[in-house]
C-alpha cells in the first residue's frame, strides 16, 4: 500500500515497538513513529525495524503525537489514507489493512475500529462501563453513532486528515478526533476489531482513573 501512511504514537515502548513495526511493514510501505520524548530505546528500535521516526523534543501526549504524525503523512503528496495504530501491539495488522482498503476503495472517509461490534474482545466490566460512557458522550458531541470511542485503530482519508486539528494533547484527543470528523460531515463507518489485551498492554494501559482526566479535559477546554 504505497499511498498509505501508518502513524504510530510512540512513548517508552522499546520492548515491543520493533515487532509492531515489522508486522506493519509486511503490509504497509510507510510507517511513521512519532517518538513522544521517550526515555528508552524506542526510537532506535522503531528506526531499525523500518519506520520513519519523528521525534518530539519533550513529551506532549498521545494526541499531540498523533497530530504530528498526521501532519508528517500529509507532507507526502501521494498519501491518500492515514492509519493510526497503537504502539503496544494490541491491534492487528490485517485489520488495519482491511480498514485502509475501505478508505482507498472510496467506501468511506473515516473507518473507526470498534471492539464492541462483535464479542471477540473482552474488557473487564468496569472498563466496559467507562468505555461505554465515553461512547455516549462522544456520540452526543459529534452527532455520530459509534460503538467505541477510544479505539486507537482508525483509517482516515486524506481530506479528513487535512481537516483535523487536535489540540487535546492527552487522552481526550480520541473524543476530539471523533468530534472533528463528525463536524466535517464525512462518511463514517466502523470496522470490527479485536483488541489483544496482553499482560504487556494491560500493564501499559491507562488506569481507569484517567477517565476522570479525560472528562475534565473535554469539559474545561
Amino acid at each position: 500500500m504505497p499511498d498509505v501512511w501508518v502513524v504510530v504514537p510512540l512513548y517508552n515502548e522499546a520492548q515491543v515497538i520493533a515487532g509492531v513495526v515489522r508486522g506493519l511493514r509486511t503490509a504497509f510501505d510507510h510507517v511513521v513513529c512519532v517518538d513522544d520524548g521517550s526515555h528508552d530505546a524506542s526510537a532506535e528500535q522503531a528506526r531499525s525495524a523500518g519506520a520513519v521516526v519523528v521525534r518530539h523534543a519533550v513529551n506532549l501526549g498521545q494526541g499531540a503525537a498523533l497530530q504530528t504524525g498526521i501532519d508528517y503523512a500529509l507532507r507526502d503528496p501521494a498519501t491518500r489514507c492515514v492509519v493510526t495504530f497503537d504502539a503496544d501491539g494490541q491491534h492487528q495488522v490485517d485489520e488495519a489493512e482491511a480498514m485502509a482498503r475501505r478508505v482507498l476503495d472510496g467506501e468511506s472517509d473515516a473507518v473507526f475500529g470498534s471492539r464492541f461490534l462483535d464479542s471477540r474482545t473482552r474488557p473487564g466490566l468496569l472498563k466496559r462501563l467507562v468505555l461505554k460512557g465515553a461512547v455516549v458522550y462522544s456520540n452526543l458531541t459529534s452527532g455520530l453513532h459509534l460503538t467505541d470511542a477510544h479505539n486507537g485503530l482508525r483509517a482516515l482519508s486524506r481530506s479528513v486528515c487535512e481537516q483535523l486539528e487536535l489540540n487535546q494533547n492527552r487522552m481526550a484527543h480520541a473524543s476530539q478526533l471523533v468530534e472533528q470528523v463528525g463536524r466535517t460531515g464525512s462518511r463514517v463507518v466502523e470496522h470490527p476489531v479485536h483488541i489483544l489485551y496482553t499482560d504487556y498492554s494491560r500493564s501499559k494501559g491507562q488506569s481507569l482513573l484517567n477517565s476522570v482526566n479525560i472528562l475534565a479535559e473535554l469539559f474545561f477546554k
Partner: protein
Amino acid sequence: MVIKVVLILGVALGGGALMRSSGGARHQAVRRLLLVGFVVVAIVSVLDPSLITTVARWVGVGRGTDLVLYLLFILVLGFMASTYRRFRDMERQLTLLTRRLALDEAMLPDPPETERPLESDGSARG
C-alpha cells in the same frame, strides 16, 4: 504598633515586586490598578481594622475578618484561573513549537523513489 509597620512594609514590598513583572499591556495595566487598590485596602485595614468591619456590616457580613476571608477566596480562585489559562496557552505554544521542530528535523517524507521499499510486494498489495 510594630505589627502595623511590619504588615504595611510587607504589603508594599510585595506589591512593588509584582508591579515590576512584565506581561501583556492591557492586562498588565488592569492588574496594576487592582494591585494598587489591594495595597491601599491592605494598608487601611491595618491602620484601622474597624473600618473593614464597618464595610462588612454594610454588605451584610458579620465581621471584618470574614469579609477578608471571602475576598481571599475569590482572589485565590481568580489567580488559579488566570494561571491555568496562561499555562494552557504556554502548553499550546510548546506543542506547536515541538511539532514544528520535529517535522523540520525529520524533513519531508523521503523522496518517494528512495522511500518506497524495493520488494515487489508493495505494488502487489497496494
